[in-house]
């Protein structure tokens, strides 16, 4: 059941998928948090010797994020957060 150690392209692909999924959140706070969290987590484990545990964790978090993005979109607030106005 244990996956072989993930390759570099796989890791980058997971990173990209997590960032893409984070973009889909309708809530500004959660969106920014997920982006920050994925970036921080990947940087933290950058020099890890065995990335498979972190990789598996990342994959399960991706599934969670996808589901949550869908659920949040059902109840998206009509008013935008103030941080999203006036770039």
């Amino acid at each position, binding site marked *: 059941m244990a996956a072989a150690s993930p390759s*570099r*392209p796989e890791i*980058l*692909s997971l*990173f*990209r998928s997590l*960032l*893409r999924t984070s*973009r889909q959140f309708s809530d500004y706070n959660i969106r920014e948090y997920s982006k920050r969290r994925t*970036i921080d987590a*990947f*940087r933290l484990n*950058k020099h890890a010797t065995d990335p498979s545990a972190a990789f598996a964790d990342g994959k399960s978090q991706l599934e969670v994020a996808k589901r949550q993005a869908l659920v949040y979109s059902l109840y998206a607030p009509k008013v935008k957060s103030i941080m999203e106005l006036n770039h």
Partner: protein
Amino acid sequence: MASSLRAAIISHFRVPASQTLALNGSKLWTVRSMSSHGDDHLDKNQVIDRVLEVVKCHPKIDPSKVTPEVHFQKDLGLDSLDTVEIVMALEEEFKLEIPDKEADKIDSCGLAIEYIYNHPMSS
């Protein structure tokens, strides 16, 4: 408000047919040309400026080193994670969806500018 929204949507769907009516001088419905991508492409200089802005705004980058030909990993000292971040930021700026295969090839400002300039959906 919902009814005017409906009317706007319906008039949108009717645009292809009403194009011919407009030629006959009939002004039954206003023809809003759906030319969000029909205009000529983004100006190359605009693309360059916007790409450089996005790259400069990235926290890990020294803005003074950013030129249109700079290489992310060789010149700016970024790693592959940072490169992915920058490509994502460019996707947001230009409202594109860059597939993974293409995104992996973009590792310098020059390539990014080329790709975005040649992409038909950039805006």
